[in-house]
């Protein structure tokens, strides 16, 4: 046990180790951030197409969205990452960070689409009908009535998805990228440290810290969105 603590002390007092961890952490943050951005934007677009009133212009887009979410959600993330790296972007010199961002972003989009779709569908049909009966446009009804109510249902599940993406990016170490997970393994296998448990414990703390912060932010947003809800007063 005392060895464990002395190794932790060693890790934090060795600049190269700290450098490696921060370097890896930064890559994890970058991939996660941009992947989530792509996921939210693309996922929302897919959900909007999916929940839009059926019309002949949307038959093909709706079909494509269905296929997309089915395939992405039906195959392993690690396999999708491999396909991106070794098939689609198997181009010499192509920046691996972009490949990773796209792999995770396109994956997350499928899940986010389901989250957003569920949120939109959970808004009572009567709310839309009220808007229609008043002669409002579909756009106004969506922006002023449906979207604000849907967001309340979307935020908690979206927070969950963001956390999932951050943790899942750890698999980029499988294609040799130096993220937080890889940094922990790298430090642990070095001759000086010669212990996996310590760097991996520290890496876990890094993951926990960022996820704790995100959970906190999501809770705050949830709270402020519940203003028009009686549940907040109880």
């Amino acid at each position, binding site marked *: 046990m005392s060895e464990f603590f002395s190794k932790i002390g060693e890790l934090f007092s060795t600049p190269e180790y700290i450098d490696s961890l921060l370097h890896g952490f930064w890559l994890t943050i970058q991939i996660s951030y941009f992947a989530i951005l792509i996921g939210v934007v693309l996922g929302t677009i897919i959900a909007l197409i999916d929940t839009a009133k059926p019309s002949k212009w949307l038959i093909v887009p709706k079909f494509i969205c269905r296929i997309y979410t089915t395939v992405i959600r039906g195959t392993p993330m690690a396999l999708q990452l491999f396909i991106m790296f070794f098939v689609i972007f198997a181009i010499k010199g192509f920046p691996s960070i972009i490949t990773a961002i796209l792999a995770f972003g396109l994956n997350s989009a499928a899940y986010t689409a389901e989250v957003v779709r569920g949120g939109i569908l959970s808004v*009572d049909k009567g709310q839309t*009908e009220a808007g*229609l*009966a*008043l*002669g*409002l446009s579909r756009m*106004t009804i969506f922006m002023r009535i449906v979207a604000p109510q849907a967001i309340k249902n979307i935020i908690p599940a979206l927070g969950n998805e963001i956390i999932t993406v951050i943790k899942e990016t750890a698999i980029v170490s499988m294609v040799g990228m130096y993220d937080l997970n890889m940094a922990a393994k790298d430090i642990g296998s070095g001759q000086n440290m010669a212990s996996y448990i310590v760097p991996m414990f520290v890496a876990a703390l890094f993951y926990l810290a960022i996820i704790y912060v995100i959970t906190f932010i999501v809770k705050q947003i949830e709270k402020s969105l519940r203003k*028009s*809800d009686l549940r907040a007063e109880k």
Partner: protein
Amino acid sequence: MNGDTDLKIKNLRKYFGSNKVLNGINFELREGERVVVLGPSGSGKSTFLRCINWMEEPTAGEIILDGTPITEKNVRAMRQRIGMVFQHFNLINNLTVMDNLLLAPVKLKLMKRDAAKKRAQELLRHIGLLDKANAFPASLSGGQKQRVAIIRAMMLSPEVLLFDEPTSALDPESIGDVLSLIRELAGRGMTFIIVTHEMSFAKEIATRIVFIDKGKIIEEGTPREFFEHPKTPRVREFLKKVL
């Protein structure tokens, strides 16, 4: 109200897949008329009402308001002239009572915000809910919600008002409040169609009763004719059960 309000419904049909809910309804409504639609459950009363402002797009037939048929293109403008009150109130949950009243007239540029606000305040004061202007719908009782929903429809000064079972989701005490508001609109000459199960209210308020069964109007007449001298056996049977 512009003097010659006249709603014509020609051969209205509505099918949901193979389920034929409305089978050719012909109907006319003149200004100042108050029509109560009666009929057994599942007869198509609500669907009939919901087709009038195209909440349900008719499978066939025409809805003509003051000579203009409702089409895909003009449906929004027409809905502004045909108000609707729902069974479940459908106040917009994320907006305060005041914003529920202001949204349509301001967004549709029918009124300036200040003028709309003034009118909303007058109407709220009138129904005794001015102190709820900044409350969210979730904090209102059913009866309060429905009265707000009625004045929300009135904000657009509709030519015709459609009530879809406005008291069916209310407790007995609230029913009275909502009915007296409708009664008051009637007193002011408002033209409306109401689907309800409140027989005594129907008798009192209606200028005409329409009875729908299996998607067709099978009898219509003044309340007196309808309740005291029903012509068809179907209506006689219905009245025996409900009165």
